[in-house]
């Protein structure tokens, strides 16, 4: 079971997820210590492995910095659920083997602190606290294949000579 950290906001951008002043490193553990620092300074203190972030539209807009995905993954966040994701962030997450969930209904049906379980194969977010199930469309097959392989580089290695 995972705890939901809910941000009722659209356009949470890459500068908020990991400010550029920390881009002088690509060390995931170090980046994680600054994850969401300018949006929610307590996020890192309050996050346990497997916890889930929930937000509105256009999550991850802005920079192409994959550091944003690394900071979230480094913070041991299980997944991010958003109404929509910005393109490069979405692509970076798949490339990193990090599963994202696009759901139009999640934000309205999950409160901060709710306990959540996710059934990735069947596309169901179970809100244990409220007892409500929220369905979502699983990622397309090619993306799931990349994630199952452990990310894009492992995926392409299979076909490289």
């Amino acid at each position, binding site marked *: 079971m995972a705890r939901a950290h809910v941000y009722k906001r659209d356009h949470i951008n890459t500068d908020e997820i990991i400010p550029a002043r920390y881009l002088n490193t690509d060390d995931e553990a170090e980046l994680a210590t600054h994850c969401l620092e300018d949006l929610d300074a307590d996020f890192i203190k309050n996050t346990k492995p497997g916890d889930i972030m929930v937000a509105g539209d256009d999550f991850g807009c802005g920079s*192409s*910095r*994959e550091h944003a995905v690394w900071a979230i993954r480094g913070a041991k966040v299980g997944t991010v659920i958003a109404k929509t994701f*910005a393109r490069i962030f979405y*692509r*970076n997450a798949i490339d990193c083997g990090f599963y994202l969930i696009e759901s139009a209904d999640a934000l309205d049906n999950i409160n901060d602190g709710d306990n959540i379980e996710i059934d990735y194969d069947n596309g169901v977010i179970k809100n244990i606290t409220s007892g409500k199930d929220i369905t979502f469309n699983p990622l397309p097959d090619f993306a799931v294949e990349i994630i199952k392989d452990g990310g894009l*580089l492992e995926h392409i*290695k299979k076909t490289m000579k």
Partner: protein
Amino acid sequence: MGMTITEKILARSAGKDKVTAGDLIDANIDIVMCHDVTTPAAISMLQEKGIDRVFDAEKIVVTPDHFQPAKDIKSAELHKRLDTWAKKKNIKYYYPIGKAGVCHALLPEQGHIRPGEVIVGGDSHTCTYGAFGAFSSGIGSTDLAAVIATGQLWFKVPQSIKFVLKGSLPKGVYSKDIILAVIARIGTDGALYKAMEFVGDTLKDMTMEARMTITNMAIEAGGKNGIMPFDEITKAYLDEHLTNKKEYTVFESDADAEYCQIEEFDCSKLEPMVAKPHLPSGGVAVGEVEGMAMDQSYIGSCTNGRIEDLRIAAEILKGKTVKIRTLIVPATPVIWKMAKDEGLFDIFYDAGCVIAAPTCGACLGGFMGILASGEKCISTTNRNFVGRMGSPESEVYLASPATAAASAIEGKITDPRKYM
């Protein structure tokens, strides 16, 4: 049904006669842009995975820019990793410090951008190159690693939105004002996953420098790429700048190509725009924010750090004195030298501006003009997110070089037409 210019270029890159929006393709990449923030990680990934190779040492262009000259020990380490790799791999077009510049100003200037090609780069503003009738899009480090090793990348062919720009720009209104107006209308996710195709007679009066300001900010509306048709202005720029490979193929959208949306702009009615914090979509006519006190003016970046931008700023600053900290950041060494030779540096010096070395610098809150808490900056850059140029309690107002220069003189947001 015909194809858009974006579909035609992607079809060519995948060796297909036809693609349609939504198709998944494996594109062969023509040019890969690498800089100091996202590339070192890509190199490390390739080394860790045991696929430390480059698909073509002549198709990868490398320049440090974000934190160059190195701002601290950690960024110096990034530069060292980039430098070691570029030399070891015999990257033909490597621009070390002295030649290095803000990537999206440097690559066209040095002749690496050709119409009809597919260009990717480890930077979101890679969409800039679409001004030349190329498909170009920003990617992260893992994609960058994959393309460095294989020369290929998967893409979903995007739907296209057509932006029809009509009429001549009034005095004091520039391409930056157009793109701020576009983003204000459709929002920061108004073109999410989509191609933004700009057409119309307004483009005919625009230099390539001015056009690049528009495609540069396609990402600020969520676009996958920004793109413009090829014309005689494109050709003249290429004739001057292409040095190595001079051949290219011109593609144009079919008359019956499919667009998911069409937006028209009467540019003759536009006013100078200012995008208020904290999203690039916060654009309003300058009159709405005129008189707001600023602490800094920043003129530079991949959006507006080209020679034309510096000329526009100098024209306004000539014989005047700035009231607030004003930074001039020429985007490349060539632009820096042109500005010096044309006497622009004297104008900036006399006005009390600081002239920096080419760098992305404070645009992304790196260094060279960071904001303290409570400070406000009028800036020719592309993003005004919370904390973008420094303290999370600072504010960034996006505008054209003319508006930034006029505002520097008065120390508050000022309509540039007052100084024309």
